[in-house]
């Protein structure tokens, strides 16, 4: 009878020891919304992207930049300008939480343009636009897909609103497929992270893609 407790002790110890597999769990939560900018019907020109940081991260970003919001929780023009500027320049390796592919081929988007920042209801908003190298007709291409994630899953990035089309939407339609944690995918993810811990696979890059919300844009 009592040796069951011994086994229970081992179970407890083993599950503590198994914990490195959750190393990659997120610490910052970013809610995004994405609008497809269409110049002429069916031609994708740019993505308008909004990030909304969770309230704690919002406060931390402000504090780290030496910005104190008003007592009412708003930012003055100077603070907004400072923030906008700091988000206009990225490391080239950063995917900007959104990766665009056309017919399965990845498309490199421009650096962020027209960056705006504000604090609304305790959450920091960053809005910007990223252009395709050239407007691309989706009628001749397979679908456009935007995968929303951050490589290391330090940031849990989700799409909070239905995607929209700005400009000449024509016969195009955007569909959001949120990450479903209760599918087979979760098992794959956990196995992946588990193996990363145990077999010391050096390639932890891109693990966040497994958790991605996906938006598909189809025309015609």
């Amino acid at each position, binding site marked *: 009878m009592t040796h069951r407790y*011994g086994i229970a002790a081992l179970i407890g*110890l083993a*599950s*503590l020891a198994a*914990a*490195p597999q959750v190393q990659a769990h*997120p610490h910052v939560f970013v809610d995004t919304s994405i609008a497809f900018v269409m110049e002429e019907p069916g031609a994708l020109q740019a993505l308008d992207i909004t990030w909304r940081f969770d309230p704690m991260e919002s406060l*931390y970003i402000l504090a780290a930049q030496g910005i104190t919001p008003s007592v009412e929780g708003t930012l003055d023009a100077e603070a907004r300008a400072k923030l906008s500027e700091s988000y206009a320049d990225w490391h080239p390796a950063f995917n900007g939480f959104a990766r665009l592919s056309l017919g399965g081929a990845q498309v490199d988007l421009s650096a962020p343009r027209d960056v705006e920042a504000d604090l609304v209801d305790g959450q920091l908003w960053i809005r910007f636009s990223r252009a395709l190298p050239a407007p691309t007709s989706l009628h001749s291409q397979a679908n456009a897909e935007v995968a929303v994630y951050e490589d290391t899953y330090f940031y849990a990035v989700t799409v909070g609103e239905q995607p929209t089309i700005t400009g000449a939407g024509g016969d195009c339609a955007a569909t959001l497929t949120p990450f479903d944690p209760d599918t087979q995918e979760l098992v794959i993810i956990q196995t992946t992270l588990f193996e990363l811990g145990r077999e010391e696979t050096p390639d932890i890059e891109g693990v966040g893609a497994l958790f991605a919300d996906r938006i598909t844009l189809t025309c015609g």
Partner: protein
Amino acid sequence: MRMILLLGGAVAAVAVVAVLVLMASGAVWGDVARWAVAEQRAFQNEMALAVHGLRAGAPGAWFALLAAAGGYGFVHALGPGHGKFLIGGVGLGTAVPAVRLAAVALLSSLAQAVWAIILVYGGFFLLEVTAHQLTGLAERYLAPASYLAISAVGALLVVRAMQAFSRQFRASGHKGHGHAHHGACGCGGHGPSAHDLERVTSLRDTTTLILSIAVRPCTGALFLLVIAWQMDIALAGAAAVMVMGTGTAAMTGLVAVSSVFARGAARAASDSLGVIAVAAPSLQLVSGLAILWFAMALLRYGTP
């Protein structure tokens, strides 16, 4: 010879069970981790809300901040990178009393909180460092320092277990020559390792345990302190971080008490089976190896 077989068998059995459980626990642990992350996020949001409330002079904002910080500390301690697994491993692997280990859990969490306050407020006030430099210091130097110290505790457990095994080996070997018919008698109640196991409860060992946990401040505490300093609510921030440490201590304390209980049960079980002299150092060996492995994994992959 029987002793060696028994010893090898016990170690192998323990190792097999540990590996099996390790593999099977993935799904269950995934659920726990997901729950902990969701709770952590909720408490984080409440803390941020309370910070805004404090600045706006909202009634009850102080209480809200402290309550959310305590809750955050509790669920955050479920995640990796904290002293919980070290405490649990020591509880399982050594003869430390539950009360002492729970006190270690409390002291290490509070020391961790005080250290975070000294680092952030001291850094801002005296050295005029930036927030990024502070978190960089914690992640690049203090976290690895903590993991190294934790691996040292794990290695210590392994070494002591090995010493206990080798003493038993010699003891049984001697008996084998002198009184062959007493071959299995080395397994009585007075395991030669008992004294060895007690040694980890010394003041020096206790201090090492506390410091190895405390040297690495919790990122959540650092962030809250950076925010509190910038938002001119430094006192509330420090108070919240102390309460956060108490919340962490509550979780670590639960692990401490249950690990000591589990060890007692395992000891009782092995006593009735007559393998106590093998079981105690085996448990210590496995605990030590688990701590080592965990600390190495943290060193390798870092903690967010």
